[in-house]
């Protein structure tokens, strides 16, 4: 029964008029929880992005890209990092399809590879932090720098949380060889990773935008 139809039922009428005696919804509680969690994370990052765009319109904001001397004008390393996260996402899909084909060992292999790739991504992100620091783009020196460290850091923390779940799933399957639980974990992790990949690409686009782009976005959003 659709949600609207459910909300229009009249519970005070006799049961026969409503056909509402079945068990309401079967299982799938983890996926429901993940959906709500992702909605929450979306609100969390949306609010950051709104404050970021708003703050980008203040005169002291110096974008990190656009001019040759600005560090993110050359985006090659960011693209490289993105490729690693993309690989992790693909490996998770591979793992998911293998576990559905009952090939547990293959699935574990692809999952471990996804974990490895995610670890690499985090190290690569930290290396960009170090480069920025060496170039004098300190976290408190400019709001653009602050937002870069803050948003990439929070994205990394979310990824780290997911990695703990992957590690736990690998440990669990090593101990119990429980294919059903493993399939659920892999499937949920895949959804989470795809989400984090999408989020990263959005952050990448915004954090490496030029001052011009910020002005255009602000005008479109009504800040300008």
């Amino acid at each position, binding site marked *: 029964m659709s949600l609207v139809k459910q909300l229009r039922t009249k519970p005070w009428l006799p049961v026969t008029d409503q056909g509402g005696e079945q068990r309401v919804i079967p299982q799938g509680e983890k996926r429901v929880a993940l959906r709500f969690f992702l*909605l*929450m994370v979306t609100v969390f990052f949306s609010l950051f992005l709104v*404050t970021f765009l708003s703050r980008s319109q203040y005169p002291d904001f110096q974008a990190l890209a656009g001019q040759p001397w600005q560090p993110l004008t050359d985006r090659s390393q960011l693209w490289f990092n993105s490729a690693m996260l993309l690989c992790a996402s693909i490996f998770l899909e591979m793992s998911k399809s293998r576990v559905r084909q009952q090939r547990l060992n293959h699935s574990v292999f692809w999952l471990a590879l996804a974990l490895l790739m995610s670890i690499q991504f985090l190290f690569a992100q930290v290396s960009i932090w170090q480069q920025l620091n060496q170039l004098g783009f300190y976290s408190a020196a400019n709001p653009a720098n602050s937002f870069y460290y803050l948003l990439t850091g929070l994205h990394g923390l979310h990824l780290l949380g997911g990695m703990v779940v992957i590690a736990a799933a690998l440990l669990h399957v090593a101990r119990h060889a429980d294919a059903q639980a493993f399939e659920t974990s892999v499937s949920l992790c895949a959804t989470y990773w795809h989400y984090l990949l999408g989020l990263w690409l959005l952050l990448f686009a915004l954090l490496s935008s030029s001052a011009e782009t910020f002005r255009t976005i602000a005008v479109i959003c009504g800040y300008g």
Partner: protein
Amino acid sequence: MKHIAIADQVDESHDPQTFISKYVWSQDHKVIAIQYGITAIFVGLVALVLSALMRLQLGFPETFDFINPHNYLQFVTMHGMIMVIYLLTALLLGGFGNYLIPLMIGARDMVFPYLNMLSYWTYLLSVIVLLSSFFVPGGPTGAGWTLYPPQAILPGTPGYDWGIILMLASLAIFIVAFTMGGLNYVTTVLQARTKGMTLMRMPLTIWGIFTATILGLFAFPALLVSAIMMLLDKTIGTSFFMPAIISLGEQSSYGGGSPILFQHLFWFFGHPEVYIVALPAFGMVSDVLATHARKNIFGYRMMVWAIVAIGGLSFIVWAHHMYVSGMNPAFGFFFATTTLIIAVPTALKVYNWVLTLWRGNIHLTVPMLFAIGFIFTFTHGGLTGLFLGNVVIDLPLSDTYFVVAHFHMVMGVSPIMVLFAAIYHWYPLITGRMLNDTLGKFHFWMTFVGTYSIYLPMHYLGFLGVPRRYFATGDTGFIPESASTLNAGITVSAIIVGVVQLVFVINLIYSLRYGKKAEKNPWQSCGLEWQTLDIPPKHGNWGNQLPVVHRWAYDYSVPNTVEDFIPQNQPDDEQHHSVDSEEK
């Protein structure tokens, strides 16, 4: 294998065996609810003492040496934050949400019991971090519960160093705890309802808790975002919110940040927070009123839609807290309009509560007294909200005691009245004992009349222009002498009301052991939570078989039936059968 929350057969080997697993690291929703409840009530009593200290200063200035401008602001801040977040949110959702959701929807437990346990212990950690700020150098923050920058983190504000850091850290930890709990509540309601428990057969308590939890999941991130950025402004010197400013005669290293940005973020959380507290209260009071008036709730569908509508609208009214912040006047027009629109579903609810009472068989039990008391206090607080929602009326009343009176009536006294109604109503289910009736009635009348004698005069102080958060007004020209007399009267009332709460606490503890043993379903309620095999329900709630729901939760005084209530799990034919046999 079916999930443990909805399994028909309970595997008893999963039952907690030791004292520790039963009462400390418990994963049973009922024990976790009680843990939440006790912690929230304890921390609420701390906040009550803080308010008494504030009132002593305001009522009798220059009398108490140990209260100074510094710690007065700390009392104000900690009182507000504790009451709103650590008492009301935690008790309504963590306490009652945890206890009632599985029982009211016919589940054995929450769908993620381990996460539920973690949620409580994380909440406890947030409380400990918060209270530890009383013992650090400089004491807790005195920035006001809104924690506005730039003053919150600059010298001159009490607790600008460790106090504010601990406050922000505590809030972040609380939000993590709430997320774990909230995901559990929402998923349990959506996934673990028993056979026959359609969405529109859920009691309004569940609708209130469910919608409030969704609000919390979407609103608390705003507080987390602002807490993280302010923490970075404070600790590593970023300038998210901090403008260029001269502090103690020296140019600070900050520059370019926007304090208004913080206000927007804070109130994007802050206003839905009002409804995170109010919606569960709306739901619970509806169930108490229907049960004790022996009448089905008037306009059930309208009540559900109103809860959902209020939840949605609560996200687009936040800037009515910011009319004096200097924002664009066009914003004021927009937010005043949305604020007045939200009054429509809210007023519908009030009418429906009154119409539920109309021609009902009203039993003036203690829970019912508190529920009726709530209708008065909430209507009162709601009406003053109409004043403050209008920009032109808000401007002169902003930051006066009128605002303090308004939000205490609507968000302090009203939810507390419902909490008392709920505790008196569900105490027999939770403990298997009845609370003492005489003490309860004494508690109600003293609290109800007492709170009116506190907050009614405050409206008048507000009209006079007496500003809030001031340690002392001294010889301010426009404030007449009578304001001081009024303030002294308010303080006396506040102390009396505060002390009366001890009667309630004593009643809770005394009745636990010596209270009259509760019979099964003592209020003769239709609600599923009263239909368990045991009172209080054992681990797993439902014995070997989950209940099957055949009707909504409000079949009171149905014509041509033997009893004046039909429990939710009673089949139709059984009811008719009993009528038939009665007729024979």
